[in-house]
């Protein structure tokens, strides 16, 4: 038994389709969300620290 008026369940109703990833990527996004920018900056900061450590390990002790 469906909610609403009798026969509602038989009414043709088109299901709204979910957007595919391809369709989503065509939607203009405008400026990036600050959350994702902060996430990108955080991973970049981690990468910079790791690379700095690596350069310290490679360079001679006089440079440290």
């Amino acid at each position: 038994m469906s909610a609403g008026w009798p026969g509602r369940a038989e009414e043709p109703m088109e299901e709204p389709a979910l957007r595919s990833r391809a369709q989503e990527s065509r939607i203009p996004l405008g400026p990036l969300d600050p959350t994702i920018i902060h996430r990108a900056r955080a991973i970049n900061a981690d990468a910079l620290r790791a690379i700095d450590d690596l350069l310290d390990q490679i360079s001679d002790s006089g440079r440290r």
Partner: protein
Amino acid sequence: MDLDGVALLGFADLTLALEREGRLIGELHCAILRQREAVARGDVAGVESSIRLASRALLTLQETQRHRATLLRRLVGDPASPLADLDTQFDAALPETFLAARRRVQSSAAEVAEEIWRNQEVLLGALRERDALLRELLTGSRPTAPADPPAAIAEG
């Protein structure tokens, strides 16, 4: 220290570890360039993907560095010994393959560090741009950047 057979094997392992680090730095480099392009396009999925790629490269790089420390401890007894100091610890010239791998890693690490710095600036710019746009929507006017004073005032 003698550069005997055991030491040469140690250098061969160390060279392999450095070559692996070099490849991972290359992957990190690719992720950083993709990130910059995605930010320029305002492509959220692209930025997300670049973050995933960079995280993966970084995690594996850290793992490889731990492995290198183990190899160094085996070779010279000190896991934190700087790779450049190895030249003075052995009484013969170090294997050329090791020296070349060390040079490559050092130069690619320096390059990727510069690219990451550039991305940090680009991302900061994107944040500022967004703030300016929001302010424009709320107040109807775009905030002006601090500019030089008009010539008349500056001169007077």
